């Protein structure tokens, strides 16, 4: 006969699952799929540090240091990220979720603060024409990164016990939750980050059981409305779209102008061929081909240049591992909040990877998106590790039975959902856990 042990509140807050006398250590052992995510995170970050050092090598040489300053900083950010990952992984995600509304509102507040007139430039310094960073003195902080996490938590928390999203009008509230930060981030302007929210929302809605035909309808309406939005774009954004169209048409006239960055990236990617080139040659090629943002947005080109097609495949496999691991965590999680978190987070990562790599390969316009875990940047790396921490959190804290049925619907053809109202205890339709015996 199993016994129910009441843990202290603080321990319950951390362990959550806390079956009997199971320790955190034992809980960690059963993380399973989250190990994939962790491993991929670490591997990608180490590849990123190497690539940043390769890209910034010329500065390193002239400074006489063993490693480029940016690479050294990235190591520091990695250490901070690992600590943040542990910190975010320990408290139960439900506890974290309690703060979702607060985080969301704070995030909105910060996004609005960025745009307020009269904000001193030492506090909010425009970079590349965008006001997206707040100077904290020791580092720069990007509110939109926090917003990503807050958004996932809020949407997850909103939808965890609801089924309204099965109807078309039930998509309005999640849409509003997404639209507000998307609008504010677009006004920075940071179209790249803003564009990540939509795929994340859609992924969460799909996972949550929203009807696919509703979502398809929305996508079609958006596609039809897109040309009307073109005049609203800023000149440099329009120029980038024109540039990518030119590339597709084989027009190389922009290779020294608007398509310069993309052209150089593609050249370096191609130069890596299948197995890559030696490190000295890679350093030389990256340096003298003058690839802009080589340690940042275009770092994927540096990786493929060095390691070739095989290196690029390894990168995609690692990202696939990360995303797959997160989705496996979602699959093995019974709790709806955990499931949503474990879907929304990898959706952000997947969208970011596809857009960034697409930019590097010349398939998408350059919209200033970093490559998760790999690109240089404290905010970006920290956020990625926090996201990893959340996945680990969900994996660590498996809910005890009985489970609420979460997002288990009979089918997609609009017939009556088989979901039944649930009670905190006892059996219910869709119950798939053991009965609890008191």
């Amino acid at each position, binding site marked *: 006969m199993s016994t129910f042990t009441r843990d202290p509140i603080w321990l319950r807050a951390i362990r959550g699952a806390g079956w009997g006398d199971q320790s955190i250590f034992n809980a960690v052992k059963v993380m399973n799929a989250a190990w994939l995510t962790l491993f991929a995170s670490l591997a990608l970050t180490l590849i990123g540090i190497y690539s940043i050092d390769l890209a910034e090598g010329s*500065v390193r040489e*002239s*400074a006489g240091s063993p490693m480029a300053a940016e690479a050294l900083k990235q190591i520091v950010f990695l250490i901070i990220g690992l600590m943040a990952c542990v910190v975010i992984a320990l408290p139960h995600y439900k506890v974290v979720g309690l703060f979702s509304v607060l985080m969301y509102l704070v995030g909105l507040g910060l996004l609005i603060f960025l745009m307020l007139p009269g904000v001193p430039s*030492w506090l909010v*310094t425009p970079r590349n024409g965008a006001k997206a960073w707040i*100077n904290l*003195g020791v580092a720069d902080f990007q509110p939109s990164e926090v917003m990503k996490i807050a958004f996932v938590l809020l949407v997850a928390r909103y939808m965890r016990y609801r089924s309204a999203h099965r109807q078309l009008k039930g998509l309005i509230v999640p849409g509003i939750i997404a639209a507000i930060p998307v609008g504010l981030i677009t006004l920075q302007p940071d179209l790249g980050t803003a564009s990540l929210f939509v795929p994340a929302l859609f*992924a969460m809605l*799909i*996972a949550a*059981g929203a009807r696919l035909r509703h979502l398809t309808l929305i996508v079609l309406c958006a596609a039809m409305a897109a040309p009307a939005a073109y005049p609203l774009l800023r000149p440099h954004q329009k120029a980038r779209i024109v540039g990518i169209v030119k590339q597709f048409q084989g027009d190389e006239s922009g290779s020294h102008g608007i398509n310069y960055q993309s052209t150089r990236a*593609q*050249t*370096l*990617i*191609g*130069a*890596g*061929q*299948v197995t890559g080139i030696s490190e*000295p*040659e890679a350093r*030389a*090629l990256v340096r*003298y*081909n*003058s690839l802009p943002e080589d340690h940042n947005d275009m770092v994927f080109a540096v990786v*493929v*240049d060095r390691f*070739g*097609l095989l290196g*690029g*495949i390894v990168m*995609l496999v690692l*990202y*696939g591992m990360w*995303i*797959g691991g997160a*989705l496996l965590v*979602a*699959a093995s999680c019974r709790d709806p909040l955990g*499931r949503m978190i474990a*879907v929304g987070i990898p*959706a952000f990562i*997947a969208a970011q990877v*596809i857009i960034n*790599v*697409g930019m590097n*390969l*010349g*398939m998408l316009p350059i919209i200033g998106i970093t490559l998760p875990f790999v690109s240089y940047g404290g905010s970006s790396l920290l956020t990625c590790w926090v996201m990893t921490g959340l996945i680990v959190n969900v994996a660590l804290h498996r809910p005890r039975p009985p489970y609420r049925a*979460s*997002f*288990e*619907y*009979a*089918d*997609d053809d609009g017939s009556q959902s088989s979901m039944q109202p649930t009670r905190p205890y006892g059996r219910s339709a869709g119950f798939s856990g053991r009965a609890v015996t008191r």
Partner: protein
Amino acid sequence: MFHRRLVLLMLVVCAGFLGLLVRMSWMTIVDGAASREVAESRLIKRTWLPTTRGRVLDRTGRVLAYDQASYDVAIGYSVLSGDWASRRARRYAGRAHKDQWDLYSTQERDAIVENYRRIYQKHVDASMRTIAAYTGVGLDELLGRRDAIVDKTERQHRSIIGARVRNKVDERERLGFSVTDEDLAKYVKNSSSKIKEQTVTHAVVEGVSDEVGFELMRMVTREVPAMSYVEGGEKALEEMIPLFPGMEITDNTRRVYPFESESVILDRSSFPLPLRSDSTVRVHVEDLGSLVLGRVRDRVYKEDADRRRVALSADESLRVASMTEDGVDRGRYSDHDRVGHTGIEAAMEHSLRGLRGVRTEHLQTRGVSEIQPSSGKDVRLTLDMALQARVRAVLDPMVGMTRVQPWHDNADMPLGTELDAAVVVLEVATGEILAMVSTPVAPRDGDWARLGLKTDEAVERFKNERFPYVNRAIAKPYQPGSVAKALVLTGASKLGKYEQGERILATGHLYPDKPNMLRSWIFKKYQELGYTHFTQLGRHPDGTDALMVSSNVFFFTLGQRLEASGIEEVYSMFGIGTPIDLGIGMSWKGSTGVFDGEGGTLPISPEDAIQMGIGQGPITWTPLHAVDAYSTIARGGIEITPRLIQRGGMPEVSNIGLPGWAVRMTLDGLYEVVNNAKDGTGNHVTYDTILDPVFNVEGIDVWGKTGTATSSPLVIDPDGDGPMEARVVRKGDHSWYVSLVGVGGTPEYAIAVVVDYGGSGARVSGAINNQVVHALVSEGYLPGQDTAAMKTASSGTQRGGAP
């Protein structure tokens, strides 16, 4: 369902990744090699070292065209104004203090930037000192030039800002709005964009030698550690900066034609009687030899690159010499390269051009290799530029021989009209062209006002009527007229249509029953009297006589006997219809037969053949053909292809097989033309009652033939809308005189003179031909004395020479 949805999401992600993988595979596998090549090409920095274009020399070694090497040292305006140092300092400060930069106040930032700016400015000052040392310009002077450039540019900028602001203010006030101080400040800010002078380089030292220019050019891409300019206490800069910030060495090399203009003194005592005097005349000639030399241009066209590619593929030695190890053509064209445009400059472009040197830096290995430039090869012409200048001076309208004069008896052209002419002088023994002159000539520098053409309309009319771009000596088709009779006689003799000693009845007209057709000139002139050459000579003419008196019936008869095939063969054996490639571009190859409009000719009719016997009808040639044919006769049938460029090696020689007796007979006839005072058509010109010999050079033997070639009038349709309003601008006969001159009974030089619409051969071309003989004497080709020089020396006047 949830799990199904997760699988769906994973599939979507996989589909996205798959698309990326496909694209990446294509880029690395299919395009990989090409991308690698492009990427690696950026590891190599090439600095091209300029070369010198080859010279063009005349036969005596006078330099007719050469490159006057000159380079300017130019520096970017941002460096001159100090903006470069400030910008680099600010950029470096932002990077070096990145972590705290946003925390600094504006004053603190400015102080940091100023520290670095001083270091960068010191570097700029040091580079200026180095430039001053290399170029030999004093440092103070160099800095003074710098300050002057900055001052002038800033004034220009302020002026333009002012103008822009004024325009905006005026517009606003025109719309009825008032302009506040705030508006004004906004206008000033918006109008302050840089002007072009603030973005380009400015020459601080002009005309440095090629040695200094090359040396500085080698250093342009060098970079040095900025810290090398740090002095005690200042923070070292961790970056490499250009040794000479903003410096460019611009090629200001000019193509110089030293003999472009010459001053020639002519002795008028040998002029035709109405122009004769004891004094000399100084004639200043411009654009001497420009049609032959041609010119260069500073603009490269696609056709130039195409021609280069063809030349490289056709000439193995050129390709081997031109290519670097990695397959780059050292002679390839870049923007603003000089390219031969016309004449020798164009024809010998690949020889004259030379090959650039190249300094190759391998950025990865820091290795440097250098190939020295190869100067272009010199081209030596067969022309004698001094002779050319004299001949050109003779053709100058101010001298009088190329203006319609009363004694020309030219009823078709108004008195005083300037006449166009061409002269070719050929050395019989070698086939080398000593002089080739065509007038008028377009001004090389485009200054039409020198020719008295002050409006665009005048220039256009001049171009349409006078064809100054056509080298009449080789490119304009003329009917030969009577000068072709020498060819017909020898040719018919060779083909057996004329027997040695044969006399042909001088009936005055060819067809016994048609006295008004195909007549001799004497019969035409004295038809009422029934005067014929038989009457004139007292005998029916043989070949010598026929040439002497220029008997048309004689040569009509030969034409009739030769028929179409024979007459065509006669002209063909003397090179008519075969291009003579002098290597200077377009030339007329001569023709027999009427053009059919489709690139071919119609068959020659018997009537045409008869006309061609006297050099009329469907036959065209050029003055070059004339000297070539007469030289061939003088050599006894040995044909040497005329040459303008000395290439070394033997000339092309062939024997057309003229019978010796026919050659002697023809030369005798030509001698009689000039020297028979009674009957020779080219012996004298009658001025009222005075018989003035055409040739008055003592001790020189002259053989020659006059010609008055009937030609079509020159019709111009000014507005190009059809013949209805066409205007006849020139009409009449072309005047010919072709001669052989020498001493001791041996022809040494052939001279062909043609004057467009000049009329009488003896009166017009003959006088010019005589002056050409005097020019040959003056230049030492024939024995005698330079009477012009003698007269000038005795009067104490400086002899004309190169300016």
